[in-house]
C-alpha cells in the first residue's frame, strides 16, 4: 500500500510540505534563532490593523456572497436541467477570466468617469460623482464578484442532494411553501452554506491584486503586508512570519468548521 502511494507522497512532500516548512523556518531563523519577526507581527499596530481589516472585509464579502449566491443556487436547483446549466454557466463564465482583467473592468465601471457614475449623472440622480472605488467599498464589490462561484457551486451541490420528496411531504402535511423552505430545505442546505462561506472567507483572506488595484492604497490587506515586508524591511523573515500567522488562522478556521461538518462531504464526490 505504502509503495503504491509513495510517488504521490513524494509529490506532496516536494510541493507542499517542504516549501511551507522552509517558509516557517525563515520566519524564525536569520543568523540564529529569533522571534523578532513574530514580536513585530503581534506588537506593531499596523499588523493588527491589517489583520482586522482583512477579517472585516472577508466577513463582509462572505455575507454578501451568501445573500447573492443562495437565491442563484436555489433557482438553479429548482428549474429544469437546461436552465440550470445556463445559470451555472453564467456563474462560472467570469471565473475563467483573469482576476486582473476583472479588477480593471470594475475600475472602468466604478471610477469617477466610469459607466455607473456617468449613468447616474445622466439620469440626474446625483450631481457630484460618487466615490465608488479606490476605497473599501470598491474592493468588496469586486471581491464578491470574483468569489461568487465559490459560494454558488457548493450551495448548488448540496441542494442537489436534498430529496424533492421531503418538500412534498412537508406540503402534504399542510405547511406553506415558505414554512417548508425554512423548516425543511434551509436546514438541509446548511452544510453547503458553511462550505461556501468557508471557501469564500478563506480565499478572501489571501486576496492581493483586487485590494491593491481598487483599494486606493488605503485598503492594506495581509497579503499586501507580505509584499511590503519584502520591499520595505527587505526581510523575507518578516514576510514569512505574516504568512505563517495567516496560514495558522486559516487552519484554525478549517479545524473549527470541520467540527460542525465533514468538509469532504460537501467538497468531495459523495
Amino acid at each position, binding site marked *: 500500500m505504502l509503495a503504491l502511494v509513495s510517488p504521490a507522497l513524494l509529490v506532496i512532500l516536494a510541493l507542499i510540505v517542504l516549501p511551507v516548512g522552509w517558509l516557517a523556518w525563515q520566519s524564525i531563523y536569520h543568523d540564529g534563532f529569533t522571534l523578532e519577526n513574530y514580536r513585530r507581527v503581534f506588537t*506593531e*499596530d*499596523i499588523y493588527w*490593523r*491589517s489583520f482586522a481589516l482583512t477579517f472585516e472585509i472577508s466577513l463582509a464579502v462572505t455575507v454578501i456572497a451568501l445573500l447573492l449566491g443562495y437565491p442563484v443556487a436555489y433557482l438553479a436547483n429548482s428549474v429544469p436541467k437546461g436552465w440550470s446549466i445556463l445559470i451555472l454557466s453564467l456563474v462560472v463564465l467570469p471565473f475563467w477570466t483573469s482576476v486582473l482583467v476583472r479588477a480593471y473592468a470594475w475600475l472602468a465601471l466604478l*471610477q*469617477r*468617469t466610469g459607466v455607473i457614475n456617468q449613468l447616474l449623472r445622466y439620469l440626474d440622480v446625483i450631481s457630484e460623482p460618487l*466615490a465608488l472605488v*479606490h476605497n473599501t467599498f470598491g474592493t468588496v464589490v469586486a471581491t464578491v464578484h470574483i468569489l461568487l462561484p465559490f459560494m454558488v457551486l457548493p450551495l448548488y451541490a448540496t441542494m442537489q442532494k436534498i430529496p424533492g420528496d421531503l418538500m412534498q411531504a412537508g406540503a402534504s402535511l399542510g405547511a406553506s411553501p415558505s414554512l417548508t423552505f425554512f423548516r425543511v430545505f434551509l436546514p438541509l442546505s446548511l452544510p453547503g452554506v458553511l462550505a461556501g462561506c468557508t471557501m469564500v472567507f478563506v480565499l478572501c483572506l489571501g486576496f492581493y491584486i483586487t485590494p*491593491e*488595484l481598487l483599494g*486606493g*492604497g*488605503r485598503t*492594506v490587506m495581509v497579503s499586501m503586508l507580505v509584499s*511590503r515586508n*519584502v*520591499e*520595505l*524591511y*527587505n526581510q*523575507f523573515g518578516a514576510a514569512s512570519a505574516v504568512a505563517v500567522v495567516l496560514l495558522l488562522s486559516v487552519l484554525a478556521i478549517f479545524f473549527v468548521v470541520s467540527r460542525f461538518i465533514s468538509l469532504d462531504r460537501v467538497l468531495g464526490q459523495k
Partner: protein
Amino acid sequence: MTMKRNLRLGCVLLGAVGLTTAADAAEQITFVSQGGAYQQAQTVAILDPSAKKLGITINQDSIPDAWPAIKTQVGSGKPIWDVVDTPTGYCLRGGEQGLIEKLDFSKIPNAAAMPEAYRSPYSVSYEFYSSVLAYSQKTFPKDAPNSWADFWDVKKFPGRRALRNHPIATLEAALMADGVAPDKLYPLDVDRAFKKLEEIKPNITVWWTSGAQSAQLLNDGEVDMEMAWNGRVSAVAKEGAKVGFTYNQGILQSTSLCILKGAPNLDTAVKFLNEAVDPVHQANLPLQIDYGPGNPKAFETNVIKPERAAQLPSEPVNAAKQALMSYAWWSSPAGEAAEKRWASFMQK
C-alpha cells in the same frame, strides 16, 4: 525572451560578417533592467552600440523590482547577473550590505568625469527621471498648479489628488509644500514632512503603487492632479490626453548601474559600465524615450537638439528648478526609518 534571442542572433550575425574576432565573442555579460518600452529604448540607444564597440555579447534579462533578486542571487553565492540598472538607493544599500561591488573609477573614466553627486562608490547614474506635479488641463485650463504649495492648497485648486504610495519623493514634496527650499531638503525633517502629509491626506483619492496606474488615473480623469513620473505624463499627453506637468520643484531621481558582488564576468562588466555612460551613447537615449541622460556631458555632444533637451528632466536649466534626490540619505538609518514609518502613516 525574444529580445534576448534577437540579440544573440544579432551577435552571431555580426560575428559571421567578421566585424568582431572570434576570441572576443566569448566575452559576455548579463544585463538586467526594468523591461518594457524603457529597456527597448536603451537596447537601441546604449546596449547594442556598446556591445558592438566592445565586441561583447550582452544577454538581457528584465525584472520590475530587482532588489529581492539581487539579495537572493548574491546571498546564494552564485549570482547569474552582472550589471543591474536599478534605482540608485538599491545600489547604495546593496553596497553597504556587501551585495554590490565597489567600483574602481580609474577603470571607468567616463563616470569619473561625471559630477560627484551623480555617482557613488558603488554606482553611476544611468538615466534621470523626475517626480513632477502633473495636472489635467481640462480641470485647469489656465492658472494650473505650479508648486507643491499649490498642490496642498485645496481651496485655490479644488479637485481630486493622487500621490505615490511611497515615502521617496513624497516626503520631499511635502517639505517643499511647507516652504523648504529644494536645495535645503537634506537631511529630511521627517516629522515635519509627515505632519504636512497628514494635512493633505483626507484630500488624496488614490495612493498609487505603479507608474501605469498613475498614468491611467490622470488619463481617465479619475484625479485632477498628482505626483507622477515625467515620462508617464508625456506618454499620456502624446496619446492625446489633456494633461500637463511642471518641472518646477520636481524631484530629480535616477536609476544607476551597479555590479553584483561576485559577478561572473566582473572585468567585462566594468568595461561595459564605462561604455554605457559614454556621452554619445547617453545622448542617444532621450532620442528613444523621455528620460534624461545620466551623464550631463551628453548635452554637449550635439546629438540632442535644443528643443528636445528642453523637455528632459536632467537638462541643466530644468535640473536647476528641481531638487536632486539624495539616495545617500534615503539609504541611511534615518531614511530607512522614514520608509518604515510610511506603512503606519498609510494605515492610520
